[in-house]
Every structure is written in structure tokens, then in C-alpha cells.
């Protein structure tokens, strides 16, 4: 979704004074909201460099209010002076981090593969499974979106225990796939609908099989949509907490669960907490800035006709 510059002529009609007022109001509001969005992030990052006194006295600006220190990062084993020493906290952190990476990438990939295939089938062919037609099948997939995690959580807890998938990454991947599948199908259906059928008809006439046409002709065109769906799915899986908190205990714990379980017996270590939170949000912050275009494409798919 690209953004065109809007050429409002209204400013030409209005008087200079009211033009300036409206400019001041617009930029004032923009800056105000930018502050609201960024301040918590700023607070999180700076707190990871504070000592206990600086936190409890509410110091805000580094070097002016307080002297930054690697305290928080040292407790994670990630500060410059501790990075080459062995650290059990760091090992634990990287284990959780890799769990998060593996589950979210795995689940997003699986959802993209089966979701794209299903979306393609649903936009191109007419199915009839017993008395279910295309519309019913689509509705069946999309209706999974309203299913709250809490409904599936306890049955899955019991089933996973029986199947031996409790506290495994595979178990989480399967559940996360289920969670993002409706969104992927929704986005990809929109994508495939925008690709003309004539392209595949030509490919079929040229002797490609149905699947050949899909892989050689349709997939390359739909790739941006797939990237968009993949990134949106990644974000949702990375931030997921509910299933991870219920279904993992030692082996497959993900980053959000680690963050949430940081209350020690002697109160909260703000600095290490903040360092951990920063590390948890950093990957997605980078993705958000770098791939914002795809995120917006994914979120607006099918919303505007």
C-alpha cells in the first residue's frame, strides 16, 4: 500500500492565519502521539542502564540526570565486560530467544505453505466436500479467528500431555500455525483474487500441469503478499504469551514467558528486567522499521475494496 501525497487545495482558500493555526495543531498532535508511542520504549531502554537509585528517583535523561551504567546488561551477561565470560543467565536467555525464533519462524512458514495452497484452491476452483461449498469452507477457515485461545488451551494441555507434545517446540508450532492460519488465508485469498486467471490458462495451454502453473506462474507474482502474511504471522507468534505460558515449562519456554516470570523473591530488578524487555522487543522493532511496507500491506488486505 503506497501513500500518495495528498494535494489539498483547502490551504489555498483559507487565510494565512488559520493556515498556520491548523499547521500548529496538526504537528502538535502528531508530535504528542509520537511521544506517547515512543516514551515507553525510551523508558524501557534507558532503565536498562540505570542503577536502583536512578530508577526509584525517576531520573529520565542519561548523562544529565544519571550516569548510564551497563548494570542491566551485565546481569544478562550481555554487557561489554561480561560478554566473554560464561554466564548462565545469558545461556538461558539465548535458549529462550532461539525457542522464540524457531517457533515463530516455523509456525509462520507452515501457515504460509498450507494457507497459500488453501487460499489458491479456494479462489480458483469450485469444491464440494459433502454439503460444504467454497463459501462454507472459507467461512470455516476464517471463523477460526474468533476462537479465543482460552477455549483450546485446556483441552490442548490435556491432549498434548497424552501425545507427549507438552513443553515441546513442535507443540507450540502446531498451535501457532492454527492461530495465524485464518489471517494468512484471508491475506492470500485477497492476493490470488487480484491475479488474473488468464495467466494460468495460458500456462496450462503451454503444457504446464495445475501445480506447475501454481509454482512457476502464480507464486512469483503472489510473493509480496506471501512476505506480508509471513511478517504479520511472525509478529503475532513472537508476541504470543497465553499458550506459551500454559503449555511450556522448561524446554520450550519462549521470550515473553521468560519476561513475565522475572519477579524475584526480593522484589524486582528493574535494570535486568528492562534489559530483558529491550532484548525481547528489539527484533520486532527492527522488523517494524525495515519492513513496515509489508506489514501495512498485510493489515489492509481485504479491508478496502
Amino acid at each position, binding site marked *: *500500500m503506497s*501513500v500518495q501525497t*495528498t494535494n*489539498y487545495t*483547502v*490551504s489555498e482558500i483559507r487565510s494565512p492565519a488559520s493556515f498556520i493555526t491548523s499547521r500548529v495543531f*496538526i504537528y502538535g*498532535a502528531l508530535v504528542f502521539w*509520537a511521544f506517547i*508511542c*515512543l516514551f*515507553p*520504549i525510551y523508558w524501557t531502554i534507558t*532503565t536498562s542502564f540505570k542503577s536502583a537509585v536512578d530508577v526509584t528517583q*525517576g531520573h529520565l535523561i542519561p548523562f544529565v540526570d544519571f550516569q548510564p551504567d551497563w548494570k542491566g546488561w551485565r546481569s544478562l551477561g550481555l554487557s561489554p565486560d561480561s560478554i566473554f565470560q560464561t554466564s548462565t543467565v545469558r545461556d538461558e536467555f539465548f535458549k529462550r530467544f532461539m525457542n522464540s525464533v524457531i517457533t515463530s519462524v516455523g509456525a509462520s512458514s507452515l501457515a504460509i*505453505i498450507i*494457507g497459500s495452497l*488453501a487460499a489458491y*484452491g479456494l479462489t480458483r*476452483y*469450485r*469444491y464440494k*466436500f459433502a454439503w460444504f461449498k467454497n463459501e462454507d*469452507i472459507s467461512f470455516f477457515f476464517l471463523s477460526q*479467528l*474468533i476462537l*479465543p*485461545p*482460552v*477455549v*483450546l*488451551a*485446556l*483441552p490442548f*494441555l*490435556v*491432549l498434548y500431555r497424552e*501425545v507427549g*507434545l507438552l513443553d515441546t517446540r513442535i507443540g507450540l508450532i502446531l498451535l501457532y500455525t492454527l492461530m495465524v*492460519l485464518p489471517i494468512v*488465508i484471508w491475506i492470500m485469498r485477497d492476493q490470488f483474487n487480484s491475479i488474473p486467471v488468464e495467466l494460468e*490458462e495460458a500456462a496450462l495451454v503451454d503444457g504446464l500441469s495445475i*501445480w506447475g502453473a501454481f509454482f512457476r506462474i502464480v507464486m512469483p507474482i503472489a510473493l509480496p503478499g506471501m512476505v506480508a502474511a509471513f511478517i504479520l504471522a511472525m509478529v503475532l507468534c513472537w*508476541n504470543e*504469551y*497465553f499458550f506459551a*505460558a*500454559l503449555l511450556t515449562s522448561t524446554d520450550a519456554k519462549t*521470550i515473553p514467558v521468560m*519476561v*513475565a516470570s522475572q519477579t524475584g523473591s526480593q522484589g524486582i530488578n528493574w535494570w535486568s*528486567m*528492562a534489559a530483558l*524487555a529491550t532484548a*525481547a*522487543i528489539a527484533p520486532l522493532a527492527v522488523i517494524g522499521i525495515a519492513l513496515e511496507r509489508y*506489514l*501495512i500491506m498485510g493489515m489492509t488486505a481485504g*479491508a*478496502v475494496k
Partner: protein
Amino acid sequence: MADQTSTANQWPADAAPYDLISPARKRLGWALMAAATLGLLATILVQILYKSEVDTVGFETWRPVVYAYVLWGVALGIGQVLTRGEDGQRALFLLPALLFTIAMVIFPTLFGFYIALTDWNLSSFSGRKFNGLDNFWQMVGDPYYRNALFNMVLYVLAVLVEYVIAFGLALLLNAQIRARKFFRVVFLMPLMLSPVAVSWMVGKSLMEYRFGPAATLARHLGWDNPAFFSDPIIARISIMVLDAWTFIPFMMIMLLAGLQAMSREVLEAARVDGATAWQTFWQVTFPLMLPVSVTAVVLRIIFKLKLADIIITVTSGGPGGATDSVSSFIYREYRDRSNVGYGTMLAMAYLVIIVVFVTWLLKLANRFVRNVN
């Protein structure tokens, strides 16, 4: 599974030669599917017998049944292609997603309805006991569950405020401004960040009673006792604010897309007719934006109904269960009391309520959009 794919109209009819399948191939396909089905049923049967201690041959866990199901799915796919040729290839697009969703949703949900009718506490040794509707009657008399449901109503109503803010932000971003891309990225940021990590930092330190900057600011603004999470009503509002911070960008992006898709001519025409900016908004922009607005609000409500992680991390439902959402309440019911049977009953009741509510909401939304346009 009785499935027939009828040839789509848009495909050329001369695809017929591909559909010539020899009877031998057809027989092979049927044999394969039958063998796989028998294999799956046999695995399940052996496992049931083993678990109920009729039989001594079996597996430690139920995992082989999962493998058998996957193999059955693969055999079903191959069988479809063998017996039905091109039609089978088409069915192959849909089969993986369908088999996956059915296995992951239908079976656990049915199983859940069964658990809901049992007295089952994972921490006690007595195991699972069928107790009929006891859980249901306990639920009806549970004031905490009723309170959680009432909170969900409040939380859903807060979506309207979020919508107003999101619409305002979308209008701002759609105005003629510099550095639009910068502001868009910044405004989108909260949605990307882990709600758990952020709510930890915001809820537990930024809004900390003694030293949090938000509390300090509130004191400066004349609020003597800025305790964000100890008064039930203020605690609810704090939770709403935290959740809104995360999800306003979601609605904002959808509304922005709607604003950008609006035709410029209509706005021009309104201006030529001498409408003020205020009139233009209410008479032209807002009505034209209604379909997008409804989609955004409905999607947001659906997400809101799942609200749990912020409450679990920040207040754990407190003070005294005042901020509990249904999900966080059930989560604690399991975590603190291991009460699987009762927790599942609460979840299933919630599912029924949600399905009824969302169906009603979609009907209402449809009628609303049609009436205005």
C-alpha cells in the same frame, strides 16, 4: 470422507484427456486409501485397548496415533490424485489446511465439551470423574466469572474510544504533512512490540506508585494519590489504556488505507459546494468510511475478546478480581487450582457467548452499512 470436486467452469473443457484414468490406477488409489484408513483405525483401536488395559501391546503415549493420522492424510492425498486425476490434484490444494484445522480444532473442541462435564483436578490423584452439569451450576453461581463477563463488556465498549482516537490519527496521517513515513512508522511501533514486555515496563514501572514517571506527572497535574492499579475502576481504565496503546495502530492503519482509497473528486465537489471542513467530514468522509470503519471495529472487537496477557502480567486480575477478563480468569483457575474441568466449562460457556455475540455483531454491522449507504 465423501468429497467430489466438480470441474470449474472457468477452466477449458479440453482438459478432458488428462482425466482418462486406467481402472488399474483407480483400484490402486482406492486400495491405498482403504489400507491407510484401516491402519489409522487399527492404531487407534490398539491404543485404546492398551490404555484401558485390555491389551498388553501398545505405545507409551498417543503420539503414534498422530503419526498415523499424518500418514493417513498423505495416503488420502495420493489416493485422490490416483483415483480422480486432475480433480484430485485440485483437491490437493485444500486438503492439508483442511485436515490440519479439523484435527486441531474440531477434535479438541469436542474433547473440551466432554472435559467441561467432568470433575477433574490435575493436582489431585482421584483423576477424572463425570459429574454432569455440576460445573455449569457452579459457574452460574460464580460471582467472579460474572464479574469477568461484565468486564469484557466494558473492555469491548472501550473499543469505541479507541476507534475515535484511531480515526483522528488516520486523519492526521492523511493530511498534507511532512515526514509522513516517519510518523507512520512511529505510530505503528506499539503494535509490533510484545504486549507482555511492554506492559511489564509500562504497567509495573512507568505507572509505579512511588517513582514511575506517569505517577509523577499525575501528581504534578493535581492527582494526590496516583495509584493506577488499586482502585477497581481506575485499574480497569489503566488496563484499557495499556491495551489501547498496543492496538490503536491496528485500526489506524486500516482507516488510513480507507482514507487513501477514497476518491479525491468527492471531496473536491464538497469543497466547491462551499462545505466547511467540519461539514465535509460528517457529510462525506465519515459515511464513505463506514464500511472500512465497521470492518476495523469488528476485527478489533474480535481481538479484544481474547484479551489476557496484559492482565495476567500486570494485575493478575487484581485488585480482588476487578480487572479480570474471562481468559485471564480461566488462566488463573488453572494455574492456581489446576481445576481443568471447571476451567473448561467456563471456557466453553465463553465460546458459546462469543459465537452468539459475534454472529449478532456481524448481522448488525451488515444492516448498519446497508442502511447508511
